[in-house]
């Protein structure tokens, strides 16, 4: 496998802007801290902070109902915390919600599934179990995967996940 690299937050922001994202709904993620900092300074995309990942999913659903295009930005631990809302709202409710999920603590020299620790290792298998299409963002050349995630979310009318492989720069 290729070694995961740290992707500059500005490049992530530019991709989100190009996708027409209007809101980032987040429970603050250490792994994506630089992107959060940038979003705080940027007026083009609204940053909405939630107390829990469950709430972030429900807020994103409401935003879509109101005509907005949100992403949900969380950490892998938050993915585990919001499994029922991922199923019940995003999945069964057929909301095209894209998740940006930080793999905090991931060894950039290993595939996530090769980790001994469950926090990183179980993220992909869980998404597969939940039938959520997933993309691993390990290189700057992978940034197009975000657009692919939006496309598959729209096509399936359901959630899609982009795993952020390395701490953002």
């Amino acid at each position, binding site marked *: 496998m290729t070694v995961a690299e740290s992707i500059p937050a500005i490049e992530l922001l530019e991709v989100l802007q190009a996708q027409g994202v209007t*809101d980032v*709904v987040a429970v603050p993620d250490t792994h994506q801290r630089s992107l959060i900092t940038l979003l705080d300074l940027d007026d083009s995309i*609204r940053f*909405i*902070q*939630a*107390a*829990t990942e*469950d*709430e972030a*999913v*429900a*807020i*994103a*659903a*409401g*935003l*879509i*109902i*109101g*005509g*907005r295009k*949100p992403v949900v930005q969380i950490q892998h631990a938050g993915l585990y915390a919001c499994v*029922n*809302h991922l199923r*019940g*709202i995003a*999945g*069964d*409710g*057929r*909301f095209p919600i894209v998740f940006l999920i930080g793999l905090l603590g991931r060894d950039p020299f290993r595939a996530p599934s090769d980790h001994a620790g469950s926090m990183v290792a179980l993220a992909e298998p869980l998404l597969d179990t939940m039938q959520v299409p997933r993309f691993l963002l390990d290189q700057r050349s992978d940034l197009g995967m975000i657009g692919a995630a939006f496309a598959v979310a729209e096509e399936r*009318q359901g959630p899609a996940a982009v795993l952020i492989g390395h701490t953002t720069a």
Partner: protein
Amino acid sequence: MTTSTSRISMDNAIEALAKRRDDQVVVSTMTVMRPWRERAETDRDLICVGSMGSASTMGLGVQLARPDVPVWVIDGDGSLAMQLGSLLTIGNAAPRRFMHVVMHNGVYDTSGAQPVLSEGNMSFADLAKGAGYADAVRFDDIESFELAIDDLLDTDGPVLVELITEPSGDSYQGPEPGTSNQLPEDGRPVASALADAWPKVRDSLAGGD
């Protein structure tokens, strides 16, 4: 705190709200869904079931998308208890045209009337005030609620209205084998009920531009 023995019937509470229904987006959940929809359903109704506690944050999302459209959430006490942190999220976001009604009957109706935790020693209105809601009030008689509701609807939100209500005595006994994930009143799959409803609300909101 819930020390009063006076309580409002759910029917009366719903009636007071239903006769003021206009163009609001209304998110209802759990026991109140059926009587509300029977009384006041429009193409701006959303239900929240199977993801307990998220009616208010779904409503928050709608209001953040469309601050020009009032949003009502008709919540339950057990539901709100499952996502109590949402009070902070809503208090922080400060949606102005947002009324959060909590039917506080003190029990988990559908599972056999087990008490909501700390029943008798807590107040959702007090919790909401502490979490940053613009206003939060509680009522245990319908006359006081009827006198106050129009002013509350004119108050900049978020506003939480805690109604001390009678347990519904709902005879719902849970899904029959093989019917999980279905609405108790008509057997429609929960998933399709939400998935069917929200595009209609979206289209209604888009048509109102």
